[in-house]
């Protein structure tokens, strides 16, 4: 049987609040994408289909919006996710080295991806480990992250 996606009760509540907030229902695509990704850890076809039906927009619209953002992922990720910011401030402060470090040291349980600005430029270079921001990265902090993830 095909898996059907359903929003959690909390997210359902959020959705009905959002519906009132936005006169243009299309605007809810992004928050809904986040809800789906939070629930499933990625965007499944069923999840995006749910959004399309819920907001009465074409499936392809949802998919195209999601594909625009590097932070949305379409496949079940590994156990841990490290998002390394690669936008200007971080890039100038050594994002490349951070990425290379994780690529080199992390084991198969960890997925390392590059994302665009996470809005923490003051703490460049930075990354998000399973959603938690780690800023002003230096060798010690990188090592600490690895320890935390038990690599």
């Amino acid at each position, binding site marked *: 049987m095909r898996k059907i996606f359903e929003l959690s009760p909390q997210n359902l509540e959020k959705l009905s609040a959002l519906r009132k907030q936005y006169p243009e229902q299309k605007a809810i695509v992004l928050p809904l994408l986040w809800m789906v990704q939070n629930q499933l850890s990625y965007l499944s076809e069923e999840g995006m289909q749910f959004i399309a039906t819920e907001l009465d927009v074409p499936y392809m619209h949802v*998919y195209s919006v999601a594909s625009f953002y590097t932070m949305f992922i379409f496949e079940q990720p590994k156990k841990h996710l490290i998002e390394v910011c690669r936008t200007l401030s971080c890039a100038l402060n050594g994002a490349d080295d951070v990425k290379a470090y994780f690529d080199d040291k992390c084991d198969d349980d960890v997925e390392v991806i590059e994302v665009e600005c996470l809005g923490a430029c003051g703490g460049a270079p930075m990354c998000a480990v399973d959603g938690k921001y780690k800023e002003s990265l230096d060798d010690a902090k990188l090592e600490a992250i690895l320890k935390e993830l038990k690599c």
Partner: protein
Amino acid sequence: MVNISVDNQKIEVEENALLIKVLQDNDVEISHFCYHEALGVDGNCRMCMVEIEGAKRPQIACNTLCKEGLKVHTKSPNILKVKQEILELELINHPVDCPVCDQAGECSLQNYYMDFGLYGSRHSVEKTKKAKHVDLGSNVMLDQERCVLCARCTRFTQNISKSNELFIIGRGDQARVSSAPNKPLNNPYAMNVIDLCPVGALTSKDFRFQQRVWFLDSVESICHGCSKGCNITIDHNTTKFDNDRIHRYRPRRNMAINSYFMCDEGRLSFHKENKKSRHFPFNASTLRTLMCTDESKKVMLANASLSVENLSILKLFCDKYSIELFSLPIVDETFGDDWLRNSVRSANASALEFLEISSSYEAFLKAAQTSKLLININHPLLFENIESHAKIMHFTTHDFEDMGDMRNIVSFASYSHENGTLINSDNIIQKFSKSLHNIHSENTLHHIFTQIDNTLYKTQETLWSGYISKQLGLGFSDIQKMGTKLKGVNNA
């Protein structure tokens, strides 16, 4: 009306007319990728930049409305430079594989580059690689590297076919046209995106690698796939060691009928015209003896896709020799939709009423039962279930399955081998022209029947002035290029 000036020429236009349309209508060359009359303004490609006096920067013609006193320059040095720069950007990640690209010769990017391009490349960075042969479905192949992201194809599926299969995904240098995984391009009009694509990003599986477009000869014709009568261009040619052959149908603009489009089934219907059939010559005196001399009851069933001229000559022939003439339009309820496709699959079904040819199925069956001779003019009904005891004489354009006694078969030229007119489902009469020349040097129906009885109108011209114009209430020369709407039979 307001006055504007384009390259110092005065033009009078409607107030608020779209500048790019005005330029096109006045044959001022204006480069563009994303604007299309049927798809509207999108303003994403910036190729249509013009200089407007009083405006600080160049403006896009596709989003400029005409106001009194507007002064436009399309060819100033500044504009040429801007276009050169846009094209340079366009080529940063373009594979420049024109030598193996099917669009070469009819590619906007190639044409504009020849006109305004920067010939010596200044690029040194490596190009981004994208997918080069994506099978989108419905015979459409996508080369993402050649795409200029004009979004014409995606706007077609969003606004016109409303099937929403194509979108642009990703961003920056990763932006590309795509369908969603497991959701291929799938609608009856899908192949129109190939014509819409200004470059070689979308090509037809059916046509690619077959011919170079500059070797093709084009003829204006009408699709015979259903009674809508979409206007088409037939592209054909004769190559060495081969017969004249059609390579593709393309929709031809006619705002009263099909605008810029056609359905996929009609588009691919040319394959039947290319099919080689056996040649069955006719013998006029045998046919004369068979059809014109004895008094026994005879019934003729004509295909309702025959041209007005062919139906007329049959009508005159049958009237003269007391043959009962019927023509049964073919109806396929699953085919029609609320746009172009019409369930009446016979291209000239509307002509029957004007020519007073019976289309009653019951009456035909009744007549056929008592008839001694059935004359079949290319009607599928008689190719299949022949339950009558009558002798059947087939006139056919193509081989059919159970040909039986081949002495009773005469072959004649199909529509791409002759000129003619058709009346479509909206009673618009349109001309189509001969495209194929020497596939099997077939005789036209007109020729065959005027050989049998040489007192009939010898040429299409005399047939028109002597008979057809009386039936239709207009002369051949009254038919406009884009067709002419006939008054219905009842309110004529």
